[in-house]
């Protein structure tokens, strides 16, 4: 049978297409050559398509210059300040002096903030610290070292900046939660911890005041996580 050159190349193209299909090459839109969260990348050495910010860069509008709000520390903290520590029966190292922590909330404390704090506390903290902060959470019952209770004089008198610092950077066996909890949510949790402390000792007045110049956070990155118009869920 005679085939023209054009026919022969046509048959070859069909054959190649069939072969590629058989080999599993898909020319469709199911898997597009673009990156989505957590996709694998062959381009980057660590194979992660989700990249960190390059070191030393600041995303627009997220310059964290409000030191009190973002670190919970006083304006000029003394890096060499000596803190007094003791060790409790579980082997936790406890601090009892807090030279660098701020003593006043850097944002206004409202009912909404405490409610948000309760919501976040019940996700991230309750697992170890327990529902009222007595250090009897489920993970402790499963064998994790018991954290100290919030309900002793040491932590009742501790400045709010100390709690913020521990949430952000961890302490002892507790890891830092900076990657999981936004700064404003950390302050919300601190406010809720104060509320818990009041709940277990209602006769004592606890310091819960806001610093005079405190404003509600301005940039979107500092606002409570929500999807509609800045309203706290």
């Amino acid at each position, binding site marked *: 049978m005679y085939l023209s050159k054009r026919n022969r190349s046509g048959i070859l193209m069909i054959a190649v297409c069939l072969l590629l299909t058989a080999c599993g090459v898909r020319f469709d*839109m*199911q*898997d*597009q050559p*673009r990156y*989505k*969260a*957590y996709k*694998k990348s062959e381009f980057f050495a*660590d*194979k*992660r398509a989700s990249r960190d910010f390059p070191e030393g860069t600041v995303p627009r509008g997220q310059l964290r210059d409000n030191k009190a709000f973002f670190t919970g520390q006083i304006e000029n903290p003394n890096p060499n300040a000596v803190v007094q520590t003791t060790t409790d029966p579980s082997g936790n190292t406890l601090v009892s002096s807090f030279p660098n922590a701020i003593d006043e909330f850097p944002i206004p404390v409202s009912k909404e903030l405490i409610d948000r704090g309760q919501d976040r506390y*019940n*996700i*991230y903290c*309750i*697992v170890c610290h327990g529902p009222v902060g007595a250090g009897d959470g*489920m*993970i402790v019952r*499963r*064998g*994790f*070292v018991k954290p100290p209770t919030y309900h002793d004089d040491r932590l009742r008198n501790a400045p709010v900046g100390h709690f913020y610092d521990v949430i952000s950077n961890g302490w002892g*066996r*507790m*890891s830092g939660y900076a*990657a*999981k909890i936004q700064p404003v949510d950390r302050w919300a949790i601190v406010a809720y911890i104060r509320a818990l402390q009041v709940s277990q000792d209602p006769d004592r007045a606890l310091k819960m005041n806001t610093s005079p110049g405190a404003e509600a956070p301005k940039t979107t990155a500092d606002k409570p*996580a*929500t*999807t*509609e118009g800045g309203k706290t*869920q």
Partner: protein
Amino acid sequence: MAQVFNKSANNIARISMVMVVVLAGTAFYAYTQIARSSYLTGRYVEKQQPVQFSHKHHVGDDGIDCRYCHTTVETTASAGMPSTQTCMNCHSQIWADSPYLELVQKSFRENKPIEWQRVHDLPEYTYFNHSIHVAKGIGCSSCHGAIDNMPAVYQENTLQMEWCLACHREPEKFIRPKSEIFNMQWQDSDLSPADRDKLKADYKIRSKEMLTSCSVCHR
């Protein structure tokens, strides 16, 4: 000239006409069933993961909130996969020397992510965002099923377009109060239809026509 067709050809022709319709119908029905089968959709197929992580244990037994690990489910399109650090928050002490955790320890030591197998793999011509569903009152278990009872996670639903549309046409059948989004025990019957209609209004969920517009999911 002799007859080409025997007299029986009349019946054969009639039966053939009926059979063509019956066979085509059967074939079409078979196609619709095969297209919805777990063989093609991956529904109910347990995925083997590099680490034998059990949601049944961590959610069902330990009562850890979904958001402890899936931190960004309320704010971004992706629900968020936990970093190895998240595992180590507890497993630095609990079961720290278990052979099941060897890969987790290795990942932590070498600072390399664990390569989890994706269970819910939407085609990339669809746009999906977790945060809007959570914000509008759709709970985890509505789509993901009883995760708190899954030792190995599988896909509870087909993830086919007809499944998406079933809810986009009648979201009021599936919405819950904000406080119950992460409640794995929630049943749609826990709320009366009237209350659900009210919730739909409160959430300002858009009309069926808007929600089923092509560009809502294909953008």
